[in-house]
């Protein structure tokens, strides 16, 4: 049988292409949304996210299908996802090389097993919390963090650079007659402080490389742990021929320290199929091929029964604490969620805070919130209407959500997916207070929800709650400096786990008018 060799060079090319694809797909998470490509393909492929969302939210997450396919493929081929596809893995590997140098001595020997059980422990915590109805995967999932890194750091920085260079080079473009470029008004994206959080996380993960290469992937990554559980039974193995000279090069170059003192054996749960060992072997004794081969007799799960119990208890405590989070009780009345967001507790359980919706929101209304939604709502998307309204023509946030925490809506259903009610503060309004000629809230309201009524002989704006969608066009446009004189509150919001928003709105007697998109 012809033996299949895996070389590191094609792998590096594949890594680069897949990272580029990841960034490209994320850049497509915007308005208007392309229907041909799945902008959330990588997040959907992640079985940890959809599993957690499905268990914690007690719901079916369609992306779980892709996750199961990945797990099945892992049983066949091992943890190839980690070595070839994972955007975070690629970034860690490259930064690792850049910062610490490839093959240089580290603090610890390459095959030493430091804290390899922790990743299983983290996985246990996530799954136990999910059983208790709480979502925790977002804190540690690598695809989530990679998405955040690009959505909250790379994209805003690139956008800001593009915006400033568009004004800087305006005269140059003009003199060249490139008017489309000269007049392109690029608005820099508006982003909260989570770029810094994502950046710090990434810096921390790279810094761990001081101990060992890809330390995150070996010891901490819960997605890696889940895939490792499948890869134990892999059918695609590393094989060492008899002419091996036992120099141990393979063990030293192994990306994940899967080869121990016995160079003819390896741990398939740790191996990420990178093929560095085969490439490094000058005798050509190392190959990867289907069929049983040089696996260590017992692929190790580095998690004792005692430790597993400890982690399970940890998951239960964390979940209980999050359920009892006193701030959470107030969130229903304080936070505005995107249209189509599931009922609050389901939403918190299913939302993995990946930042796709925040990236996709064309008006920058959606922003991650820190603790305004309680500890349980950390980094969850919230609507900040002063930054931008929920545009009537857009349903991007639901379409890009990988777990269905925001439902996929069409433009008609979106009209009825009421975010809240606008409330005028007469003391701040220039019409109520100063009698000026202003109607900015009215002219911007796409739903015709501002009525003018005679109050003591004067024409005054008032909100018709039955027509208000809570889109915040009024709050955004209000010309009063600082806090708007008209603000949206969640009162009256429609949050449905299943069923039609139009029907629910009808039952509540709302007369939201949908503008046909032609």
């Amino acid at each position, binding site marked *: 049988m012809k033996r299949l060799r895996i070389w590191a060079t094609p792998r590096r090319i594949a890594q680069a292409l897949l990272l580029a694809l990841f960034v490209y797909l994320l850049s497509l998470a915007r308005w208007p949304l392309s229907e041909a490509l799945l902008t959330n393909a990588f997040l959907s492929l992640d079985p940890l996210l959809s599993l957690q969302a499905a268990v914690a939210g007690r719901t079916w997450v369609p992306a779980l299908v892709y996750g199961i396919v990945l797990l099945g493929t892992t049983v066949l081929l091992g943890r190839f996802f980690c070595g070839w596809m994972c955007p975070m893995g690629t970034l860690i590997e490259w930064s690792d090389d850049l910062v610490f140098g490839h093959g240089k001595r580290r603090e610890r020997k390459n095959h030493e097993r430091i804290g390899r059980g922790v990743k299983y422990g983290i996985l246990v915590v996530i799954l136990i919390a999910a059983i208790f109805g709480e979502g925790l995967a977002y804190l540690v999932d690598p695809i989530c963090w990679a998405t955040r890194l690009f959505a909250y750091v790379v994209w805003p920085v690139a956008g800001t650079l593009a915006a400033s260079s568009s004004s800087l080079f305006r005269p140059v473009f003009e003199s060249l007659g490139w008017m489309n470029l000269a007049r392109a008004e690029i608005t820099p994206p508006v982003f909260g402080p989570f770029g810094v959080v994502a950046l710090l996380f990434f810096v921390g993960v790279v810094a761990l490389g001081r101990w060992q290469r890809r330390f995150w992937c070996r010891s901490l990554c819960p997605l890696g742990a889940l895939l490792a559980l499948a890869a134990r039974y892999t059918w695609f193995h590393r094989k060492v021929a008899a002419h091996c000279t036992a120099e141990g090069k393979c063990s030293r170059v192994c990306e994940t320290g899967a080869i121990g003192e016995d160079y003819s054996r390896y741990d398939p749960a740790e191996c990420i199929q990178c093929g560095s060992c085969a490439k490094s072997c000058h005798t050509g004794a190392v190959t990867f091929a289907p069929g049983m081969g040089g696996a260590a007799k017992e692929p190790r799960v580095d998690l004792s029964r005692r430790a597993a119990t400890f982690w399970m208890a940890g998951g239960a405590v964390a979940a209980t604490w999050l359920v009892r989070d006193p701030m959470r009780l107030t969130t229903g009345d304080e936070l505005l969620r995107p249209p189509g967001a599931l009922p609050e507790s389901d939403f918190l359980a299913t939302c993995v805070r990946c930042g796709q919706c925040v990236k996709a929101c*064309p008006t920058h209304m959606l922003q991650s919130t820190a603790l305004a939604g309680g500890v349980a709502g950390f980094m969850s998307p919230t609507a900040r209407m002063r930054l931008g309204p929920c545009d009537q023509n857009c349903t991007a946030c639901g379409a890009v959500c990988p777990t269905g925490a925001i439902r996929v809506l069409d433009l008609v259903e979106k009209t009825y997916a009421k975010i809240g009610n606008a409330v005028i503060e007469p003391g701040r309004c220039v019409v109520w207070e100063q009698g000026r000629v202003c109607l900015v809230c009215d*002219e911007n309201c796409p*739903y015709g929800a501002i009525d003018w009524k005679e109050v003591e002989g004067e024409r005054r704006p008032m909100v018709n709650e039955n027509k208000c969608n809570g889109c915040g066009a009024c709050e955004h446009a209000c010309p009063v400096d600082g806090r708007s004189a008209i603000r949206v509150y969640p009162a009256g919001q429609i949050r449905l786990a299943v069923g039609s928003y139009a029907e629910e709105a009808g039952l509540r007697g709302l007369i939201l008018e949908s503008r046909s998109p032609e």
Partner: protein
Amino acid sequence: MDMVYLPPRPGRLCPGRARMKGKKSMHRRNVLKSMGAGTVAWVVAHGAPSLVFAATPDLAVIKGADPAKNVRAAVDALGGIGRFVSKGDKVVVKPNLGFGNAPIHATTTDPTVVRTVCEMALGAGAKRVMVLDNPCHKPEIVLDISGVKATLSGLDDTFVYTVRKDEGFRKVEIPRAISLKRSEVALDLLEADTLIAVPVAKSHGSAKVSFTMKGWMGVVQNRRAWHVWYDLHQAVADMATFIKPKLIVLDATRALVTEGPGGPGKVEPLRTIVAGVDQVAVDAYGVTMAPWGGSGYRVEDIPHIVRAAEMGVGNMHLDRLTIHRASA
């Protein structure tokens, strides 16, 4: 206000009209106008529609099913596009691109009307046509949903864009203003050889109607100030003293008669294009076209039109205008 001395208005259009204040005189323009009116009467009376006019009317009002034909007929009735656009001109076309609503909702200028005006300007030898507005909604959504960007694509030397950022504006003095003495105005508009306004006719919650003059809110950067710091009607009239379109093509192909300017409201298919060179006259005519706001207005009911007329921007008395009416 009548006691205020108004200096002659700068610019190439209608010199001296400010001082006349409606008095008939042997001014060339008025002579031509009455000659024109006489000719129109004669032509109509004798049923000879193909006769070449000896003079141009003040307003051309064309009705018909095809908006492009209406625009061409209206501009031709005013003497043809060559009267307004010379070879090599940098032309700015100012439609209403305020809202991200589809054309059927009548909150933005009909894309075909904008395209026809651009085509005519290019046909007259314009070097470049710049189509711009400062929208209320998110720029890329407005340009896309309004249909203007797609409809204009493929036209050479025509650029559609929004102006919002600092570098697109310059602060100017408005010498004849009563309240809006200073404002930032779109740079491209200040530097244009020819400005053609292509507003959409619609009702308006606070200005009552929104035609040509109200549309100048889309060429300034900080329009919030018009509501919060100044009297809106006065600010609109003030800006009208400063901005001088050479040609106005008012789009009433379909009109948002109630709930303007953002809708959703009653949309009526008026199938009409009004063209003229006097923004006050065009707007005054616009008032008579439909029952704006539900019950309709007289021209004297619209404060910004009345004030602009008082400030000498143009003529709001429809009975003193020659109006060419036809079907395309």
